């Protein structure tokens, strides 16, 4: 099969720039990471020492790593599950026929336009143990004074809430777009047949929304495991006592702060494998259950 007769070389020439960018910026560094993961680098004299599987073995024996592993997954489940549920709820509300629906939609969506750094500074000031507005509101109402500087649970919740909040706008945008594609007649017909609001949602709206849900699940997984980095760096820097040192942040700390590049490389290889598996499972199972037919 010759799709481009007379142009044998041109197609390769055309894809060459993209392929070379991928090779230089993704494949080569990834190969380097795998190579480094079997070495330790003398932090001050820069020699590579081959240590075989020691980085991997040490990793799974280190309570810090296992702790980070567990926390990352709890964080992922909270941010993805709760984040998607809340945004779907808000999207449903703002697509109701109410006055000023567009204003509400915009008001909820704009959080995504904010850089994670600004959002992080905002949240950490709001909950600053001494001068935070919300700290005082919560403290005066409940008598519990939040100090996320040393309270591991408070720090974990704060980072989770802030991460959900930052991603809300993005999720709502896609849910609103998805909801607007659900034919009104179908919902109306169901209501006439006697289905209540809840049944209409589960039987008509949600299945028709499933491609959007699948897409958002994937994007939010990437967000929770990789892109939450900026927020964590601004709010807690992985602390207190490593409670918010999630996998991606630990890689950064180990590689660039603690001068343990080999160990960080091994962790990044493991993280890559985890994400690849999670992503594949998600796409596989959900594309089968998602309804793409109209």
């Amino acid at each position, binding site marked *: 099969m010759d799709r481009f007769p007379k142009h044998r070389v041109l197609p390769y020439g055309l894809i060459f720039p993209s392929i070379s960018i991928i090779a230089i910026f993704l494949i080569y560094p990834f190969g380097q990471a795998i190579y480094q993961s079997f070495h*330790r680098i003398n932090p*001050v004299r*820069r020699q590579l*020492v081959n240590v075989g599987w020691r980085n991997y073995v040490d990793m799974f024996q280190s309570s810090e790593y296992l702790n980070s592993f567990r926390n990352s997954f709890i964080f992922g489940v909270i941010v993805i599950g709760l984040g998607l549920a809340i945004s779907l709820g808000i999207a449903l509300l703002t697509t109701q026929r109410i006055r000023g629906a567009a204003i509400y939609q915009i008001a909820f969506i704009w959080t995504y336009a904010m850089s994670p750094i600004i959002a992080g500074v905002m949240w950490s000031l709001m909950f600053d143990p*001494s001068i935070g507005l919300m700290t005082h509101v919560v403290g005066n109402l409940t008598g519990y*004074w939040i100090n996320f500087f040393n309270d591991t649970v408070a720090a974990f919740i704060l980072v989770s809430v802030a991460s959900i909040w930052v991603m809300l706008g993005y999720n709502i945008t896609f849910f609103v777009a998805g909801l607007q594609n659900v034919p009104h007649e179908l919902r109306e017909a169901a209501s006439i047949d006697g289905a209540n609001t809840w049944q209409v949602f589960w039987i008509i709206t949600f299945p028709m929304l499933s491609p959007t849900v699948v897409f958002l699940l994937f994007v939010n997984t990437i967000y929770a495991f990789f892109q939450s980095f900026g927020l964590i760096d601004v709010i807690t820097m992985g602390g*207190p006592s490593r409670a918010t040192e999630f996998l991606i942040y630990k890689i950064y700390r180990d590689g660039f702060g603690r*001068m343990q590049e080999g160990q960080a490389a091994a962790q990044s290889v493991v993280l890559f494998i985890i994400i690849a598996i999670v992503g594949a499972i998600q796409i596989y199972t959900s594309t089968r259950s998602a309804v793409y037919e109209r």
Partner: protein
Amino acid sequence: MKKVLNRTFLLVLVLTLSFASLVNAEVVEVEFWHGFSGARLEVLEKIVADFNALNPKQQIRTMLYGTYEEGLARFLAAHPVKQEPALIGLYEGAMGAIHDSGMIIPAYQIPEKVGVEWDFGQYVRPIVTYYSRDGNLWSWPMASSTAMIYYNADHLREAGLDPDSPPTSWDELHEYGLALIEAGVVKHALAFGWPDWMFENQLALHNLEYCNEGNGREGHPTEVSWPNEFTDKLLTKWGDMAADGVWTYGGVEYDANGAFQSGELTFLMQSTSSLDGILRTVGDDFEVRTTFLPRLSEEYTRGNTLIGGSSLYVSNQATQEELEVIFEFYKYLARPEVDIYWHQNTGYFPSTNAALQRLMDGGWFTESRNHLTAFLQILSGKTDSHAAAGMKLGMFVQAREWNRDAIEKVSRGEDQRKALQYSADQVNKLLAEYNEFIQN
């Protein structure tokens, strides 16, 4: 016509390029990486711009590398591939690793390399001691600080306490804190930045070493000295103060400054480099005063507080021309007016004795007595013991992190001995691995 234009254009281009390269050949530009963020950045930029204006052929180009930790990691990674700057400012935590790296020219050899003699006696003694190895200065003094107590004098008056006699010991600090809380002046009385550095400072202040091998100054340390009888007492005290609500954990670096500035805390233990920021922010809202760090008990002999901040290192791959520019820059920094400008706008110590004298003669220390506190504290302390000079170790970043981890546990009411022992075990393991690397 078009052809002629094209040719003219080409000719102009060639001429410009060759002229530009001719000019460039004479200008030596030295790259200078530093970590001076925030208000300090403007002050540094001004000093560098003034230096560059002096001699158009000797130029310094600054680049902010981010946090101090990142600066060290970047320098170590850039040096083997020859991408490192000729000049870099690094923090005290980098000292052990950078000395061991063999990537720098020790500061004391630089004057010799440019063919002049230079009197290191003109620099303030404790700074030189801190950055010295075997009696020779290894990095150039620039931005030195130490820790001290900042306090809100108005709060003390409100609680019926005498602002002229602030607490001098941890017991007194505890009592003052309880009195302030009881009087309803504040909810918490004390917080500090850099908790790990405060712990290190307490050891040095009581003339106790942090690790073996002469506090890391005679060799590569193999284990830390803590937990010990002293840290038991100190951390128990901190735990008690946390339980009473007197001490609240104030975060890793400068987070607690905000609380102090807005009058939510009476006492703040922080680096002197925050002084000008705090004075400017507080303005006339309340009276800011400063005093020496508290001591635990007089059964321990006196040591000194620790030098922090950053000092300048020169890559051993710098060219002779670059070295000459760097030395000119060093000489420029030592000019009293430059040193004074730096001190008055950042809170860092003046580095030279000449600047110090001029400041004193001009009445600066009576006019702004808060600028004298930390200085007097460090000048009046001991300088002839390894403990007072401060520790040196290669895996400093992690040692600090583990130490901080224990302090956070103490602030949450966990058992101090157990917490510190766990951290010590982790640090000792890291020291062993580091030493293994160094010997290979």
